[in-house]
């Protein structure tokens, strides 16, 4: 159900199963600060977990006071609704938006008294803002079948009531006010005709919302658009008659985490915590497919194809963000020239190079690239959002750079744009001419940065992926996939030899050849067949690597080292003493020019770019960095 995206905050990763214990651990840890709270808050938390986190926030505040680097904010909370469940969910959600929140709760349904009395609890606390949690039942908006003029008076009266409360909190408490638009109940008096009759609840709420917006515009107070939030998840789900009747809850309790997140977005925006930059992956994020392998003609983008349109939606979203002042950058594992081609030449691309302030396409890890982007733009890591379809890349960046927001994405690209928007990273409370022009300040035309050093502990992250590499010889089952890879792979391909199925079948049956179909399984699932190897006899006790290709999707995970280990072990078992590798350069495989050098082979010859390399099987092979699963071979020890 689409509303689950919102209700369950599906752009946030699931909390660890020991979340409660971690909250306690943070509360007890003398060295824990606001960062630990933010790390816990950056999960999809239900009401119970938000309360557990709120307890940790309070415990830490009691011990340390400030909760740096979170920004403190005091929020008064009043309304005609049950406030008790709102407070801990607000406090638990706030660290997600860089805020250390304290709440001052008004007495139940004593909104007017809290506002008008200079020594009410809220006014004495002099909060930074007051959340006016009034729903349609808490305002003088008596519905009736009266005429338009009367309806206008009723609405004006209700707006005046809210204006008076705002003025009172400002004068008596020194606080700005967060006012809510009204979500009408789904029930109607007539049906569609309710919109025509001015005194129905529906018409009154709509008129009130419009008038409230006008009243608040250009002032210090801000809107929390509950009307739109309720419509988004559906009025019938938002309003729960049972929960109102039993507990005076203004909306179904399962939307508490969503509501709290929206309030905290506004609070965060008031303190300048909204994100400022969107960093985009390319392959399978901005277009379908892999540009390096599929080429300009092969990537899926637009053209009436429903997947192609989904990727265009992502581009449209990015472009619209840029138009309101959000900076765009690219971080992609690709050859730079190859990655830029669609921007320059694909007719369906909406994003062009000059929409991108920094364009990082290289084979280094993304955490290092993102840190470089942040520095080049003089923006903090906490201003960044990183969009990538690959859960392994997302995990790496979250671990190395926890301040960067990395939304979870669903399996279906049709929901990428919606998920990014639902996450609300770019909430604003103002919009100026300067904002409109901001993107052009970064018009350095897709700068490319040189990287210094490396961020984060890559080896530890890789170990956490629990990878298992699976080696099998060529077989009938894998034949068609092997053939596909052999013919499709352009970038990580040492010799680019193309074989059809019958030739692959011949390798299968050849007892003198070593054939490997390689799969990789990790904590996110089975990546399928990601590498193909063929070694053939080439002289006395010598093998030559006829074919070595790999999917770029598993670069940077030391798969190549594990494959070499396997080749060496199998070679030794068959009495092979020397392995020869060749690199045949093409327009597309520049990235593997140094492949054999990196694996410890020595260069034997270089003829116009075509290089030949050698390795002794007696040499120490690379250390194992993952579990190996091997079967189907007849290994005889020499």
């Amino acid at each position, binding site marked *: 159900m689409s509303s689950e995206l919102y209700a369950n905050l599906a752009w946030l990763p699931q909390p660890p199963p020991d979340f409660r214990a971690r*909250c306690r651990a943070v509360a007890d840890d003398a060295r824990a600060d606001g960062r630990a709270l933010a790390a816990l808050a950056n999960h999809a938390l239900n*009401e*119970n977990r938000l*309360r557990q986190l709120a307890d940790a926030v309070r415990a830490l505040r009691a011990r340390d006071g400030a909760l740096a680097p979170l920004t403190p904010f005091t929020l008064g909370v009043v309304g005609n609704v*049950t406030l008790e*469940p709102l407070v801990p969910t607000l406090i638990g959600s706030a660290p997600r938006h860089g805020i250390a929140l304290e709440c001052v709760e008004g007495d139940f349904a004593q909104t007017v008294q809290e506002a008008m009395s200079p020594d009410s609890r809220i006014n004495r606390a002099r909060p930074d803002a007051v959340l006016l949690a009034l729903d349609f039942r808490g305002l003088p908006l008596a519905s009736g079948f009266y005429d338009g003029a009367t309806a206008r008076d009723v609405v004006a009266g209700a707006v005046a009531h809210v204006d008076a409360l705002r003025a009172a909190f400002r004068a008596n408490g020194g606080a700005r006010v967060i006012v809510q638009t009204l979500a009408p109940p789904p029930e109607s008096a007539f049906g569609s005709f309710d919109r025509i009759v001015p005194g129905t609840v529906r018409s009154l709420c709509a008129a009130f919302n419009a008038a409230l917006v006008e009243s608040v515009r250009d002032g210090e107070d801000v809107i929390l658009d509950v009307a739109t939030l309720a419509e988004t998840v559906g009025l019938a789900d938002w309003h729960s008659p*049972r*929960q109102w*009747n039993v507990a005076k809850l203004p909306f179904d309790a399962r939307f508490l985490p969503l509501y709290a997140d929206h309030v905290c977005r506004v609070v965060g925006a008031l303190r300048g915590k909204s994100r400022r930059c969107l960093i985009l992956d390319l392959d399978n994020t901005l277009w379908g497919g892999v540009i390096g392998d599929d080429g300009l003609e092969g990537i899926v983008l637009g053209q009436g194809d429903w997947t192609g349109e989904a990727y265009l939606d992502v581009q449209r979203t990015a472009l619209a963000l840029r138009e309101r002042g959000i900076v765009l950058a690219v971080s992609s594992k690709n050859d730079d020239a190859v990655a830029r081609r669609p921007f320059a030449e694909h007719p369906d691309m909406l994003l062009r190079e000059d929409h991108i302030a920094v364009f990082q396409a290289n084979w280094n890890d993304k955490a290092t690239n993102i840190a470089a982007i942040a520095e080049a733009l003089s923006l903090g890591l906490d201003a960044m959002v990183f969009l990538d379809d690959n859960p392994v890349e997302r995990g790496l960046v979250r671990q190395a750079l926890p301040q960067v927001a990395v939304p979870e994405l669903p399996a279906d690209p049709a929901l990428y744009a919606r998920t990014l928007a639902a996450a609300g990273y770019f909430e604003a409370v103002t919009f100026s001419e300067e904002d409109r022009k901001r993107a052009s300040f970064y018009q350095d035309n897709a700068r490319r940065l040189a990287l210094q050093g490396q961020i984060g502990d890559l080896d530890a992250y890789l170990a956490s992926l629990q990878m298992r590499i699976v080696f099998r010889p060529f077989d009938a089952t894998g034949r068609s996939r092997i053939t596909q890879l052999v013919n499709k792979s352009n970038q990580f391909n040492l010799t680019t030899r193309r074989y059809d199925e019958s030739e692959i079948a011949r390798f299968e049956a050849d007892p003198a050849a070593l054939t490997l179909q390689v799969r990789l399984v990790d904590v996110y699932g089975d990546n399928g067949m990601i590498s193909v190897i063929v070694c053939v006899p080439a002289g006395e006790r010598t093998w030559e690597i006829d074919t070595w290709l790999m999917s770029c999707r598993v670069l940077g995970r030391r798969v190549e080292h594990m494959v070499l280990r396997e080749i060496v072990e199998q070679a030794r078992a068959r009495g092979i003493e020397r392995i020869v590798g060749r690199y045949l350069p093409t327009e597309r495989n520049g990235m593997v020019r140094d492949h054999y050098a990196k694996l410890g082979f020595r260069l034997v010859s270089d003829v116009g770019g075509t290089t030949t390399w050698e390795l002794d099987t007696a040499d120490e092979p690379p250390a194992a960095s993952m579990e190996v699963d091997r079967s189907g071979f007849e290994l005889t020890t020499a």
Partner: protein
Amino acid sequence: MSLDEIYQRLTEILREVFDDDTVTARPDLTADQVAGWDSFAHLRVIFTVEQAFGVSFAASEISGLKNVGELAQLIQAKKSGS
């Protein structure tokens, strides 16, 4: 669903809701025996139970419950479709 399974899951739920590893669901457990089990916490217990067991309670069903035993029996009745 067996009563044993229900009590096991209720224990997990009570521990989550009250952030207390010493709470154990048993038939004669009442709200006043658990620290923090006020009317708001009661609603949270009910909502969490509804989500965890995939059932839905009417207001009249909730207001009549005297102890955890009656809640467990209500859950069992709902899960068996009666």
